[in-house]
């Protein structure tokens, strides 16, 4: 009886668990990330097909600022480190450090978004609008969608910090932080692909 009670307590602490012994929340997040691969697969395919279609406006090699984008990539990569440190702090029940690492991750994410806004503004001033060419449309769609995902990630990080500070998490706190972390790492791996295929490999 006591054993059953302990088991129920654990289930409440760690969220809902299925007959597989795995967290349903985590299973759903991985399924979601698998489907997100399809979204970005389609966008990357479209870009790869249209990257050479420059009827009007500047060519990719004329406008890409590789040193600037490299710094942005580095910032996003390091945000993955701070995110995983937030997850390990949450697993140790260290709320102060969890919030610290989440704050740094959100700041790094915001820096990346700031860099993307600057890049888009510069490109637009150089004559690359959304409808200038097939290249520009596919470029802005792909990198714009990724930027939206990073922005959503920053909102998720800030929300997680808020609910941890207010002690509003009823289930497993570490799992909540881990789920946000999975999403955050996903936007990082998508950028790893974008940075190589779009920026470093010339059309």
């Amino acid at each position, binding site marked *: 009886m006591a054993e059953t009670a302990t*088991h129920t307590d*654990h289930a409440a602490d760690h969220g809902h668990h299925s007959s597989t*012994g795995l967290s349903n929340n985590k299973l759903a997040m991985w399924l979601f*990330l698998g489907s997100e691969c399809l979204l970005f697969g389609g966008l990357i395919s479209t870009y790869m*097909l249209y990257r050479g279609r420059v009827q009007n406006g500047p060519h990719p090699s004329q406008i890409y600022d590789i040193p600037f984008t*490299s710094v942005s990539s580095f910032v996003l990569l390091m945000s993955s480190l701070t995110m995983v440190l937030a997850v390990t702090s949450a697993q140790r029940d260290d709320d102060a450090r969890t919030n610290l690492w989440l704050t740094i991750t959100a700041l790094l994410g915001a820096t990346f978004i700031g860099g993307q806004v600057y890049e888009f503004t510069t490109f637009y001033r150089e004559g690359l609008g959304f409808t200038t060419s097939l290249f520009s449309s596919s470029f802005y769609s792909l990198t714009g969608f990724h930027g939206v995902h990073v922005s959503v990630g920053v909102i998720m990080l800030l929300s997680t910090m808020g609910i941890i500070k207010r002690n509003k998490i009823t289930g497993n706190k570490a799992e909540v932080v881990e789920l946000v972390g999975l999403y955050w790492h996903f936007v990082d791996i998508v950028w790893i692909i974008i940075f*190589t295929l779009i920026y470093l*490999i010339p059309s």
Partner: protein
Amino acid sequence: MSTETQTQSHEHGMSDTGYIKIALILAAITALEVSTYYVDFGPLFMPSLMIMMVVKFVMVVSYFMHLKFDSKIFSFLFYTGLGLALFVYIVALATFKFFIA
């Protein structure tokens, strides 16, 4: 789920130092990737960039996202999506290459 299994799920993964080492390796690979923009790698340019991209991708997924230490079901769900995405890409490219061009 037993208490033992719960404890294991909390303790899976690496130490903070381990994660920092992974991040340093990722930063070094990124630096190497950027160097291909300035240094002529000749015929190795494309293969080296693709290999570095895949290595970075796998390292983040395996270590930072804990797939290496987690249930194989998660790996199946994610890599199925990734495989389908690659399939979409290959089909789209093949369509344009063989039927439209």
